[in-house]
């Protein structure tokens, strides 16, 4: 039934951001042309990736290998349903975030915009590469490119604080990269291949139990990008980056690459059976449950909006890990669709945070009293995202939470069902105060402006206080966040939009073998 098909499409999809990065450099003197190339690349890339969907749904696996690196390891791509979900998510959101970036970067008159767009394109290059790679070694290569290319984005502000964040970011993620490389070579020396295979490539016969356990821990440490506790602290620190960066990279591309890696490891390297046999599922699930609860508690204490969102991300990522760790079809379906759903909802929240920052210069929640009246569209979108995070219908988050709960029941672990419910409750606890402050709080008469960022926006903020969208530049920001909010609702009614649900089902069916 399943057959491989040669196709150049993965290469074309990868080439788009790489080419656009070069064009961005060449046209650095002409900002409009430069952003034009970026937008063109985003749209072309998404179309190419989306054009692969029908083939995948028919059961074909698109393979394209360039050369053999080592016996049994080919450099190249193997596109399957799960990889495509991640690729669609990151490439589609890249379109919106690019539009948003134009508004954000120009409104704030940010410096080094060429570097920003260049690195952004390379980060997407890395993320889509991770999504489409056919084996661990190829994935590792793109994973490292992703790490390096996002550093300049994190340290963009070039303030001592940003530099510190950048260093911390590299220190965490590069250490993770070393662990991952160790895990990859160990896997190769045990199994003789690193291809992602539906039933897993490792079995008990290859190595003693303890070695397989240690290898799994190496993998987990390697995917530190998933920001599970206690290795999470790079993510809130990295929030000093410009908001579009936090939005796409720290809600979608980078952290999802980590989670994606964990799912790949569990389902395609170890395989469900081996995970059961080794009892690793419970271990992983406990880790995830711990992170879900504790990160939510941390989030409550944050006053900086972006930092609160960061802790929310940490908590939500662990939902995905938990879903996989349950090792049941429903749980894994939930994990797979939560990758795009969470991406859409979280990006809405981040884009809103960025708009608020640009329009009013406010970063802290306590200062946002009454902002809902000044920026109704933005805050409405924010509410949609926040409700989705809490798992309220009719927002996409409800669907994934539904599957997680079913997954917990299906694998007979009621304790984790309770964890999911408690974590959702905590989500409500830290999101609702924001909404309440924004809509029902009393707007302060005089803002206390401090720091140099405020100086940039103080000229703009007077006009924008009352109405968003007066200046055309704000359209660049409002439209993308409205679209993501719209999709967050749409996914609840039509989870098969973009074939995301179909793809997830297809992937799960493959993993469990015609369930």
């Amino acid at each position, binding site marked *: 039934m399943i057959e491989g098909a040669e196709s150049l499409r993965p290469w074309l999809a990868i080439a788009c951001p790489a080419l656009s990065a070069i064009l961005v450099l060449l046209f650095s003197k002409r900002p409009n042309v430069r952003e034009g190339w970026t937008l063109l690349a985003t749209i072309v890339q998404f179309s190419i990736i989306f054009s692969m969907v029908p083939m995948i749904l028919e059961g074909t696996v698109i393979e394209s290998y360039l*050369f053999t690196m080592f016996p049994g390891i080919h450099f190249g791509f193997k596109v399957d349903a799960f990889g495509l979900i991640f690729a669609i998510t990151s490439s589609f959101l890249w379109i919106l975030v690019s539009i948003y970036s134009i508004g954000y970067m120009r409104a704030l008159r940010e410096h080094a915009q060429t570097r920003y767009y260049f690195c952004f394109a390379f980060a997407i290059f890395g993320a889509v590469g991770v999504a489409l790679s056919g084996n661990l070694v190829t994935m590792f290569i793109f994973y490292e490119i992703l790490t390096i290319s996002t550093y300049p984005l994190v340290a963009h502000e070039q303030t001592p604080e940003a530099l510190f964040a*950048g260093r911390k970011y590299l220190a965490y993620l590069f250490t993770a990269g070393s662990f991952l490389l160790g895990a990859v070579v160990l896997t190769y020396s045990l199994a003789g291949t690193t291809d992602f295979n539906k039933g897993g490539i490792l079995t008990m016969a290859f190595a003693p139990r303890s070695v397989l356990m240690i290898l799994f821990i190496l993998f987990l440490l390697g995917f530190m990008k998933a920001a599970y506790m206690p290795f999470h602290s790079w993510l809130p620190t990295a929030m000093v980056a410009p908001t579009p960066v936090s939005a796409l990279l720290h809600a979608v591309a980078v952290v999802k690459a980590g989670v994606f890696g964990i799912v790949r490891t569990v389902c395609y390297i170890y395989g469900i059976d081996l995970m059961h046999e080794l009892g690793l599922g419970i271990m992983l699930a406990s880790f995830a449950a711990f992170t879900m609860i504790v990160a939510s508690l941390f989030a409550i204490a944050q006053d900086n909006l972006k930092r609160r969102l960061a802790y929310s991300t940490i908590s939500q990522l662990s939902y995905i890990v938990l879903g996989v760790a349950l090792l049941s079809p429903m749980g894994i379906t939930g994990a797979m669709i939560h990758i795009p759903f969470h991406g859409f909802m979280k990006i809405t929240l981040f884009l809103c945070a960025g708009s608020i920052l640009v329009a009013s210069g406010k970063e802290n929640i306590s200062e946002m009293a009454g902002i809902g009246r000044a920026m109704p569209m933005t805050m409405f979108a924010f509410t949609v995202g926040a409700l989705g995070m809490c798992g309220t219908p009719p927002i996409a988050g409800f669907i994934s939470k539904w599957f997680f709960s079913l997954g917990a029941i299906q694998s007979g672990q009621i304790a984790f069902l309770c964890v999911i419910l408690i974590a959702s409750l905590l989500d409500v606890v830290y999101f609702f105060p924001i909404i309440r402050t924004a809509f029902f709080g009393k707007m302060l008469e005089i803002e206390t402006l401090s720091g140099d960022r405020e100086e940039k926006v103080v000229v703009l903020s007077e006009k924008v206080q009352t109405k968003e969208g007066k200046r055309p530049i704000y359209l660049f920001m409002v439209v993308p966040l409205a679209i993501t909010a719209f999709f967050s609702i749409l996914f609840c009614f039509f989870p098969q939009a973009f074939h995301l649900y179909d793809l997830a089902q297809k992937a799960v069916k493959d993993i469990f073998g015609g369930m």
Partner: protein
Amino acid sequence: MQTAIEHFPVLIVAISLFSAITILVAGWINKKTPPFISIATILAQFVASILILNHVLTKGPIHYWLGGWKPPWGIEYVVDVLNAYVLVILLFLGLACAVYSKRSIEHELPHKIVSFYAIYQLLITGLCGVTVTGDIFNMYVFIEIMSLSAYALIGSRGKIALKASFTYLVLGSIGACFFLLGIGFLYSVTGSLNMHDLSLLLPPLYGNRIVKAAFVLFIVGLSIKMAFFPLHTWLPDAHAFAPSEISAMLSGIIIEVCTYAFIRLAFSVFSVNFIRLLPIFDILCWVAGIAIIMGSILAMTQFNLKRMLAYSSVANMGYIMLAVGLSTSARNYPWCGLTPALMHILNHALMKGCLFLVAGAFIYKADLWDITELRGLGRKMPYTCAAFVIAAISMIGVPPSVGFVSKLYIIFASLEAKKFAFVAILLVSSLLNLIYFWRVIETMYMKGEEGEEHSHASISSKDEIPLSMLIPVLTLASLCIVMGVLWLAGITIPALNKVNAMFGLVVIR
């Protein structure tokens, strides 16, 4: 009847030597000529070396008898894949440095152009000689030619450089003594100096204590010359105070040629069977492991950019020697035998050559020596700094650069040898590399130049180094990525595997 190419090994050495004399004479008449003569000579040598490599790969080794005297009485030049490979690398880097030094030497040593190029050409002569010779005493002679010209070039800036040069002179001479003693020991038991002849005479004598002692003397002598960890003390000063192109040559090829000499002695004169008798390669591995870690830690503590790069070279010699040490136990294609070591010789030449030339560019433009002085330079010298970033991330080992491939191959080799400690050492060392290289990158790009010491204020908004300096830098930097992909694609591996086959380091399946 010999074809023309079979005369090339001796020609490569001879034209280089003649060109050194020509430069002296021509430079006496017209001061502008030396760089051009030097570049033309090395270009000719480089082309010849490529032809040799091609010939060796297709038709087998070249044997050239000097003066027609039959070995073991006469001196023999033997070129096989191993020599030809090293020869191509060394002449390529030599060419890049010669092109680069035209402008840079006019700036740094305006009164010594003629003597600089004459000695530079002698250095190239020595390096080529070490590589092509098949005679152990001849090798010693060329090592000394190479070292003596290196002493002179390092000291050419005067003042503190003289002290660095003197330290190198003293230690280098001690190393040469060890090497000579080793030759003497071997001669006393076998009565021969020809490598091939020795390899036939030695096997019955492997139990002999004199032979074992000779091997140890070779190791110690060459370890000093190649700055292998506990014996590296001459290197940081020499690298830091030499003109930058000489630092690039020192770090990129001179110490590597000494490694080549070691490989040649260990596997051609002695053999795998001899090495297996002694635990010497295990010890070598561990010392190399310490070298990797210590070199990186010492590099982290440096403020001077070139000194930092010098310590990084110490660490990288550790990589190469670790790979050599593992060569007898790793037998699976493609990381079998000497492949990782030979691979890193090329990779290190590319990366370190590029980094030192960039460091030289900073000195050329605004006399910037310390890392902290480089604040905000990424905007003023975009191409140079970009080259630095590429070479630096190669050193860190980010895929798909050359450094990543070396790291991967050595890790695979140590996994196969079941020496897991080295996997950990390599991974830790790439993190240490990250720390000290990223400090530089961060300073160049991420820190503004508002600081009180505005050291490169003389540079206007955007000011690149001259094209003749920029081209070598950018070529080396782009090769860091291109070669990385070529290595990964495995296109060049079969050629290296011939070396393994020659030394009996591969399982034929």
